């Protein structure tokens, strides 16, 4: 066990898995970097450094730089997965999904069902998501609801370094296609991460903090924010339970319902526009199956129904921030 960043945890998971299984290949834009240039090849290691050193260790047969052709990247990963490899494809920013979504939702997600259970598509599509970097409308979105609503996909959203490694190893070993959403906001976050390989099963929420008065459900980069607000409320003797589902598909519905059954109050925090969001989905789940345990209306803390703005003053308010989370918590506690 040692302290590692979220970024290092991802990098370590990929290297350890590639050492274990020669069927794993990596492909994407600049996963090595420098191909065809006059200088060093392999020094880029993905735009955020997730693949640092991977090319150096595994070489060009397994670490494949592609043209900027997202449909061909995802499609090639799909074809390689259907024929026996276990590709890890990289979509540099999740925002770029618009140019390759057909390969994701019409192809990889549907092969198994369309082909009567006779196909396996064991691939991971890793992608970086989230606001807070002044990347504006086309480099800052989360988009996890888009993937979550597609039957056939699994969706993981790690909120800390430990989960990043364990969920990514599970994703790589999983026989179904997995969308692995890395939070740009968390790449530098440090935490204890075991040196050895380990898996975190999908569909098992992590109770990030136990409590009795109020439940927060949060995903990815919103989990640390939910925990910070929970710590503030603890100073006022309000006991908040923070549920981190870790995967949005499959979703650990029982963990959410159990927590709300205990606290009777729910705030869902989701970095996503409000319509058809995970926040709305979970509010619907609790209305359907946990209504009798509710002692107050469910509150949803989401982004507004707008594109991600550029100006810092606007973007800081766009994301669910501690002030908005606190306001929602107080409203639920007062009801």
């Amino acid at each position, binding site marked *: 066990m040692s302290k590692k960043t979220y970024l290092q945890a991802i990098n370590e998971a990929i290297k350890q898995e590639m050492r274990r299984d020669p069927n794993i*290949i990596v*492909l994407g834009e600049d996963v090595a970097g420098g191909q065809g240039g006059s200088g060093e090849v392999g020094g880029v290691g993905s735009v955020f450094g997730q693949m640092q050193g991977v090319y150096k260790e595994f070489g060009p*047969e*397994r670490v*494949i730089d*592609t*043209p900027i*052709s997202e*449909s*061909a*990247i*995802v*499609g*090639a*990963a*799909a*074809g*390689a*997965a*259907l*024929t*026996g*490899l276990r*590709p890890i494809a990289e979509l540099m920013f999740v925002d770029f999904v618009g140019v390759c979504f*057909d*390969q994701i939702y*019409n*192809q990889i997600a*549907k*092969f*198994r*069902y*369309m*082909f*009567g*259970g*006779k*196909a*396996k598509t064991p691939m991971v599509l890793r992608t970086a998501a989230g606001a807070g970097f002044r990347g504006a409308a086309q480099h800052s979105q989360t988009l996890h609801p888009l993937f979550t609503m597609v*039957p*056939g996909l*699994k969706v993981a959203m790690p909120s800390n370094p430990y989960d990043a490694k364990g969920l990514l190893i599970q994703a790589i070993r*999983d*026989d*179904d296609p997995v969308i692995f959403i890395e939070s740009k906001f968390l790449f530098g976050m440090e935490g204890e991460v075991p040196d050895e390989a380990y898996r975190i*099963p*999908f*569909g*098992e929420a992590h109770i990030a903090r136990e409590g009795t008065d109020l439940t927060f459900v949060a995903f990815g980069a919103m989990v640390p924010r939910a925990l910070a607000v929970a710590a503030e409320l603890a100073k006022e003797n309000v006991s908040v339970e923070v549920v981190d589902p870790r995967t949005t598909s*499959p979703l650990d519905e029982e963990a959410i319902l159990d927590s709300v059954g205990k606290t009777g109050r729910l705030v869902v925090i989701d970095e996503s526009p409000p319509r058809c969001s995970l926040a709305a989905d979970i509010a619907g789940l609790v209305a359907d199956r946990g209504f009798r345990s509710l002692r107050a209306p469910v509150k949803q803390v989401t982004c507004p129904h707008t594109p991600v703005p550029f100006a810092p003053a606007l973007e800081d308010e766009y994301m669910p921030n501690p002030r908005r989370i606190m306001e929602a918590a107080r409203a639920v506690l007062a009801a």
Partner: protein
Amino acid sequence: MQLSRDDLKRAYRRMVTIRIFEERVTKEFAAGNIPGFAHVYLGQEASGVGVCFDLTDEDHIGSTHRGHGHCIAKGVDVRGMMHEIMGKRDGLCGGKGGSMHIADLSKGMLGANAIVGGAPPIAVGAALTHKYRKSGRVAVAFTGDGASNQGTVFEALNMAVVLKVPCIFAFENNGYGEHTAVSYACGAPSMAERVRGFGLPCEVVDGMDFFAVQAAMKRALDHARAGNGPYALELQCKRFLGHFIGDPQAYRTPEELAEARSHDPIPKFRRRVLEAGLLDEADLDAIDREVGDEVESAVASGMAAPSPDPAKDLTRDVYVKYA
């Protein structure tokens, strides 16, 4: 011509199987025995059979919405296909895929694909597997003239060249993308010329002549298997019927339709092998009868076969395992 008698019989059988199967699909569709919609391969038999003739079950093909012929050419079982197209539980895909998503991975058939331009990127991935494993096998991307204008196809062509994978792009130019002529929809004067612009060889081939297709495909296979990267064929074909079964085709004159039929690849093949004394009438007629019986039997068993059971089948096989 270096094909043995058995080879010639196999080629003829596959072409006739496609012909009789597709004629029967057309008839059963009209009779209401096939749900949904279906796009038949009538007229293009020589193209699919010529391309797949020297492939093994370990070589892969990605197909199109007009995929029945590619399945048969790749050796997929006709009974399983008919049951699938009829939506039956024991169809190749359990009745969940249907005409436009029919697949048989055990035969290297990676699926018909109802998204125009959907399959070429996937075929590049299968070719990547073959390159990585040094298997000596190839992947074929069947692509229509309509799909040849899709961005996914351009991406796949370029990626195949950049990664130097053994992928063969079989562009079947049947003259029409849905209801629009290739002369209108393809901006380049020549589809093959445009493909060559991506940096790979592209031959223009008479797609109505089995022998021409098979010989061109042999050159493509030699190229790809020698590690020289992708290769392309523009197979010039004629579509006998409309885009889908029931398309009245007012956009084609009766003269054009008759002209298309004059290129029928099956009588052409018969004439060729009979005149050369390679096979005799009795051989060919026997194949016609056997295939007719096989398709008849597939239809009869398909009609009698049970539908999938919603209680058991509706929600299964979305995932290998969903926690």
